[in-house]
């Protein structure tokens, strides 16, 4: 574990820089600028504990954004990520608390439930030819209702499953490296992002994801079963939302059936800020990660500065526009 993370760290940074140089992840610079500005504005901002809070805050939205990235690169959109997360959390609650099953089954159950819902959305899109917006909007409503139905409209607490909250809050890294108490939730986000990034760039699924997003008809004419792969992409995204479901319910030590609405916009925003095009065909996971971090830093920073809430939203809006504008400028110049 130690060597793993020690190795990972420099290579990640060098990769970031390399990618940034490749004009792919220009949002990176905006993130740095934000961090610098907030550090200057508030001495409390650059504390370890606050940095951890930001990372922690990124974890759930980050995982959802990774899921959304896959779907968006393939030219679709997934509005159901938020309620899907909630639904899988409820499923985990039912399995672990109501049915008293062991932890791994709960986790697996949530991921499989997520993948199944994704499979359904994907089938609506691929087989029934329903526009992704509508298919996943419908799924979002269905899951919003089902979460309430399954949970009986009340939170399910994981009191039977000791250590459940450690999944997100504990720190495996911190145990071996006490000076780096990165919560597991963040570790999981990075693992999910790493795997997703690998899948996107190195596997068939990823290739078809880009291909379908770029020109679905061309891929189909090349003899690829695009329907199958589209469904697979939605199902994988659904499974990732299942991981987010575990993360959030572990953090709250309960499955909150009413949560999740509005999270989809935030996830999609992270994706787009990270440079992924909503029309499909291009995008990176690392960009998405940076997009999610930008949003978390922004929210946290403004809160730490105790900016009045109504102004927080105004400033957030302006900075999101400016951050993306800065990217556009750099991209144009580099051309």
């Amino acid at each position, binding site marked *: 574990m130690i060597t793993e993370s020690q190795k990972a760290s420099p290579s990640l940074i060098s990769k970031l820089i390399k990618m940034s140089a490749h004009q792919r992840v220009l949002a990176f610079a905006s993130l740095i600028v934000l961090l610098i500005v907030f550090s200057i504005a*508030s001495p*409390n*901002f650059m*504390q370890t*504990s*606050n940095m951890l*809070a930001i990372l*922690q*805050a990124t974890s*759930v939205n980050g995982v959802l954004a990774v899921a959304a990235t896959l779907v968006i690169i393939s030219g679709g959109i997934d509005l159901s990520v938020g309620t899907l997360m909630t639904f899988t959390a409820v499923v985990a609650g039912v399995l672990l608390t109501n049915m008293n099953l062991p932890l791994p089954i709960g986790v697996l159950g949530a991921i499989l439930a997520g993948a199944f819902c994704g499979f359904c959305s994907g089938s609506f899109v691929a087989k029934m030819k329903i526009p992704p917006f509508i298919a996943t909007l419908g799924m979002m409503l269905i899951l919003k209702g089902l979460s*309430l139905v399954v949970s009986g*409209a*009340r*939170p399910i*607490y994981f009191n039977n499953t000791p250590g459940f909250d450690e999944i997100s*809050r504990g720190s495996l890294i911190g145990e071996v490296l006490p000076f780096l108490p990165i919560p597991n939730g963040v570790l999981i986000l990075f693992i999910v992002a790493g795997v997703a990034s690998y899948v996107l760039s190195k596997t068939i699924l990823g290739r078809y994801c880009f291909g379908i997003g770029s020109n679905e008809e061309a891929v189909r004419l090349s003899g690829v079963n695009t329907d199958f792969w589209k469904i697979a992409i939605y199902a994988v995204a659904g499974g990732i939302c299942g991981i987010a479901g575990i993360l*959030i319910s572990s*953090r*709250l*030590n*309960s499955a*909150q*059936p*009413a*949560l999740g*609405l509005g999270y989809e916009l935030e996830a999609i925003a992270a994706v787009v800020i990270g440079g992924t095009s909503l029309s499909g065909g291009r995008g990176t996971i690392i960009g998405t990660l940076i997009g999610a971090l930008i949003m978390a830093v922004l*929210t*946290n920073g403004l*809160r*730490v*500065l*105790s900016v009045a*809430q*109504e102004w927080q939203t105004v400033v957030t809006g302006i900075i999101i526009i400016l951050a993306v504008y800065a990217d556009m400028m750099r991209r144009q110049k580099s051309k």
Partner: protein
Amino acid sequence: DDQLYIPLISKGFQHQFWQAVKQGADQAAKEFNVRVTFEGPDTEAQVDRQIDMLAAALANKPDAIGFAALDSQAAIPLLRKAQKAGIPVVAFDSGVESDIPVTTATTDNLAASALAADKMAELIGNKGQVAVVAHSQTGTTGIDRRDGFLKRMKEAHPNIEVVTVQYGDGDQLKSTEVARAILTSYPKLAGMFGTNEGSAVGVVNAARESKAKDLVIIGFDSGTAQMNAIRSGLMAGAITQNPIGIGYETVKAAVKTIKGEKVPKIIDTGFYYYTAKNIDDPKIAAVLYK
């Protein structure tokens, strides 16, 4: 069927507070053998959605209607329509600026959070910094609970400074994030007040995650997580209204009015401050929801 039909249009649905109100209403429905439905919009901002719900409820020609107004004026034309059709209206949780409702089953949110302010002052020794994590900047209960707390602090406890009020929309995760940020910017914070279940649980989560030990936390409403926090001492105590009672009294008053009996203009369902000590008192336990 000749069962009486009483739809309740509330301010919310998924939130535990409203589910507790629903529970009380269902209880009364069983007791008086009436049919009750319960609906509310997703957020307390959606005033127009609530009016659409009220309109749909009126289309079903109910025998009475229970209504928790999101806005004190917006629904008045529809309420007039109900009045014209002879459908009695029982207001609950918040009143409307009109004499159409036969009664209002409610608690005084201002007084309830003033009590929270007093308890907070007592626990932190009447001086220091406190912060508020509120659940709504525009909803009536949110405003009342925030203002009740702020006003009382200013008037009765001048040595206590309320350093910031921030809003987490009653969403546990968001409130956690908000509270952590507050703890970062005010390391010397002595106490925090969460104005509803989601906010209070968020504050507890944040205190746990950032290992803030000596923070005095006072919450509002109940729910398993909050009650556990109180039992374990993480949270000093919380104010609770009687949501089950509100639901119950609303239906009961409606039934009475339909039968032609008189009901008082205001039904105060009361509020309590509970701590680890009295949480299991039968009187308190009866008003807490899990």
